């Protein structure tokens, strides 16, 4: 309304202004216009002010409309089923730290379920309810790990909204690829213009998005301006070629091997080593091949290693870093770089026609075993080579699988990542059956959600054993938390027997039984909640 909107004094009528001035100073100092001075003056002033106030309020007029924002783009996706919309509101209202206290009790951790809910909603292609967008943007603002899934679900209207609120600017910077609002989707000229004129973050986003749609076009876009980019930018741009990498990228990567920047060269070499058919890979195979052989002169065939004596200019050009980190022998350092970059499929021929598993079983002379196996691990992960990963992982029940073997837990987790979901779950289940849960956390983290039945059972059995052994459940809180989020909800009914507070065994930690019961209750409650969540997101008849 014109008065309140313009709240500035000049717009006030003179008489009113006179009343305000008099009121501020007091009638003892100033007499209001049209009033007799004396004892009646304050009341006369109040009478006049009352009349003026009511008159001004009664006479308010609407304001002139400001310039309207451009309407938000349409979201073509179907709306959420009502129950799912209510669930979303509930998940979004759960903020960590509001429940007080560190211990979690028996109640599920709703915020931890939001990623799963978002993944399911995105997989089914639902649109976000417009009224939930502010809460979604607030959640994504607080947790960067939630941003890609949240922004994808939030859709085009969220970006429209983010332009109006500085708190949500991050959404404009981190638009995920593959959504309805790919940057530069305004045709080839739009892409070209954004690439030429955009900010660095926008250009990275553009390149990433384009790479996921058309890998060749993204590479050509980058190649066109490659020579003029700064070294740090070249490194990050090059990194975005990691997705959709293929043989067609080889010439460009070969060229990048001659880059001025050492980091760019190293990244180009790493990418090329993931292309076993490349000329680069062939060069590395020759170099690595001269270092590793099978010696048949002893009682049993043995692998012998002759590490390189120097790092020559050609090796450096192929990305081999000459200077070893402090504390590492430089020959071992060079060997590792050659073996990890050489195609794994060349080794069987080189080592007497043996399978990867047979190669693993061979003894290695002169303490080179861990160096050599570690390099093969890196190669298997980089080249996503399942047979080699399998061989390097070995049997999950093998004694050294649980201990400090040649392959660390972190490397095992990466190797598992190259296998199919079912095989991964089976291996980890076997590992847990033999070695228990204390080392399993990292391995569980790479298993597909929900966990396959054998894996779920192995985890629950192992938790049960840990409980019977009398330790406190928080020694396993990491695995418990994972189980809440990853166990198949249909397993909930099998857990009922674990909810009761057990009799305390001898030597048990005091009160552990009831804490376990509480932890299992939370697990069951969370599983039921997840089942309900997914059911709500499944349209009837689907």
């Amino acid at each position, binding site marked *: *309304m014109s008065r*309140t*909107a313009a709240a500035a004094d000049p717009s*006030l009528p003179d008489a009113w202004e006179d*009343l*305000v001035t008099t*009121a*501020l100073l*007091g*009638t*003892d*100092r100033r007499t209001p216009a049209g009033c007799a001075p004396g004892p009646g003056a*304050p*009341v006369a*002033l*109040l*009478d006049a*002010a*009352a009349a003026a*106030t*009511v008159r001004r*309020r*009664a006479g*308010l*007029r*609407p*304001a*002139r*409309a*400001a310039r*309207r924002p*451009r*309407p*938000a783009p349409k979201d073509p996706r179907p709306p959420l089923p009502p129950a799912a919309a209510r669930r979303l509101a509930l998940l979004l*209202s*759960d903020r960590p730290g*509001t*429940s*007080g206290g560190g*211990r979690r*009790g*028996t*109640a*599920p951790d709703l915020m931890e379920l939001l990623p799963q809910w978002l993944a399911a909603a995105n997989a089914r292609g639902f649109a976000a309810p*417009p*009224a*939930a*967008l*502010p809460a979604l943007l607030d959640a994504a603002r607080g947790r960067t790990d939630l941003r890609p899934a949240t922004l994808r679900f939030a859709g085009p209207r969220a970006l*429209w*909204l983010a332009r*109006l609120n500085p708190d949500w600017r991050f959404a404009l910077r981190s638009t995920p690829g593959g959504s309805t609002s790919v940057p530069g989707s305004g045709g080839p000229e739009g892409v070209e213009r954004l690439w030429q004129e955009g900010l660095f973050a926008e250009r990275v986003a553009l390149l990433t998005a384009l790479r996921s749609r058309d890998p060749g076009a993204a590479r050509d876009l980058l190649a066109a301006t490659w020579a003029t980019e700064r070294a740090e930018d070249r490194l990050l741009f090059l990194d975005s070629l990691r997705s959709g990498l293929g043989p067609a990228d080889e010439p460009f990567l070969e060229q990048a091997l001659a880059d001025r920047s050492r980091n760019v060269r190293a990244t180009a070499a790493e990418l090329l080593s993931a292309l076993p058919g490349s000329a680069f890979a062939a060069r590395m195979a020759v170099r690595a091949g001269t270092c590793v052989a099978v010696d048949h002169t002893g009682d049993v065939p043995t692998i012998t290693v002759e590490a390189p004596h120097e790092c020559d200019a050609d090796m450096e050009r192929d990305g081999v870093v000459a200077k070893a980190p402090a504390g590492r022998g430089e020959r071992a350092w060079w060997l590792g770089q050659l073996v990890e970059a050489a195609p794994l499929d060349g080794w069987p021929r080189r080592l007497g026609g043996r399978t990867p598993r047979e190669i693993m079983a061979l003894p290695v002379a002169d303490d080179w075993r861990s160096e050599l196996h570690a390099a093969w691990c890196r190669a298997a992960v980089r080249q996503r080579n399942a047979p080699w990963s399998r061989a390097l992982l070995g049997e999950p029940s093998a004694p050294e699988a649980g201990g400090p073997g040649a392959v660390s837990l972190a490397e095992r987790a990466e190797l598992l990542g190259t296998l199919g979901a079912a095989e991964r779950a089976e291996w980890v289940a076997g590992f847990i059956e033999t070695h228990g849960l204390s080392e399993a956390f990292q391995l569980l983290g790479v298993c597909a959600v929900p966990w396959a039945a054998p894996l779920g059972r192995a985890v629950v059995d192992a938790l049960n054993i840990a409980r019977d052994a009398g330790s406190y459940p928080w020694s396993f809180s990491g695995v418990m938390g994972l189980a809440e989020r990853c166990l198949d909800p249909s397993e909930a009914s099998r857990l009922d027997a674990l909810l009761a507070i057990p009799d305390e065994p001898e030597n048990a930690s005091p*009160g552990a039984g*009831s804490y376990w*019961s*509480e932890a299992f209750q*939370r697990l069951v*409650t969370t599983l*039921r*909640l997840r089942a309900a969540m997914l059911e709500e997101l499944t349209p009837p008849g689907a």
Partner: protein
Amino acid sequence: MPGHNVGGMTQQGVRWTADRVLALAPDTASREAGGRLGAAGPWSGTGRSDEGAVWGLCGGSGSEPYRTVVDLADPSGPAYRCSCPSRRSPCKHALGLLLLWAGEDGAVPRAEAPEWAEQWLAGRRGSTERGRTAGSPSPPSGSADPEAARRRAERRAERVTAGAAELEQRLADLLRGGLAAAEQSGYGLWEETAARMVDAQAPGLAARVRELGALPGTGPNWPVRLLEECALLHLLGRGWLHRERLPEGLAATVRSRIGLPASADGPPVRDRWLVLAQYDTADARLTTRRIWLYGTDSRRTALLLFYGAAGRAPEITLPVGLALDAELSAYPGARQPRAALGERFAPPAPTAARPPGTTTARAVVRYGEALCDDPWLDSVPVTLDRVVPVPDGDGWQLADADGDTALPVAPAARSRPGLWRLVALSGGAPVTVFGECGHQGFTPLAAWPEGADEAVSLC
């Protein structure tokens, strides 16, 4: 007038909605903690009785589960008992239990109350019976000696008159010395005046005086706002002192603004009342819940007020967007919207009805007209049809989609999350918005997008 509107709330047998349960929560933390306990996991031995009691055992951190029981049968609102150490009422266990009962079929089966629950319930029944037979200190009307009631009313009127005269004197002194001096004298002066008005049994005057005390020094325009409010307070005092000369409607408004008790003695109007908005405001003493209703047949907009002690949610909650088949009785006063909730005939149900909307220009005219009956009115309930939220400098306005006029969003509403929900809901397209329109601007409370979607609460 706390506790004025709790009659007819006995609802045993009718299951509540989760929203209604959550509205009982004393604070956000309890609300969330209770929300987490509203699933079968931690509960055992749950049951409910036909008399409206619900009980259960909630496994917690100790070796003994907590014993939780809720009595829903009392017409003055639910009562809770839990063996947990929490001092909040209701505690998270009571909320969780009610949510479980509200949420899942069969989660809380009909059963015989266990001894620990029955003891407490029986004790409660006994004390409420005793309370009833002993008789409440002053029955609202009728039954007692009418002559005595008249004398009581006269004595109170005399005290209010003395209070109003004293207030007039204090206002005159204030204006004689000037408002600039009032800024220096601080809050104590107003607090003392407010206490005098409480003594004079004029709570409406006391509340206005307290609000005055908060004004000096707030923002660049405080002298204007302080003069306005002083003048309106003066107007109210004069209105009381000369109430015999006022038309009956305006006199009733003055009595209600002064804070004299009134009973909702308007004829009961049965309608399907669409719940437009529900929101709470709190000060150090009291939580006030306002619920706006729209009668889909009578086409009346009505306001229900409920009170709770500070920090406690009022007992009643109505779900926004649903319609309630119920009777309402109006309070006295010309064209004022306040009413009391009478009998309810069915649980709230979905409806496609919406209040008819108007333009921004008509909305301000409606406020101006309402001031004729009640010059102390801060705002009127209005539904705006086809408006678009538009950013305007630091603030926002609601602009007519088909015209070039707009209403500014009230400054207090700018920082609320509801405003962003409204903007998101609109997406730049016209929406229907219900809210309060007054001299501060427009406060949006509920909105409907174009199409058949249900109401979205902005509170």
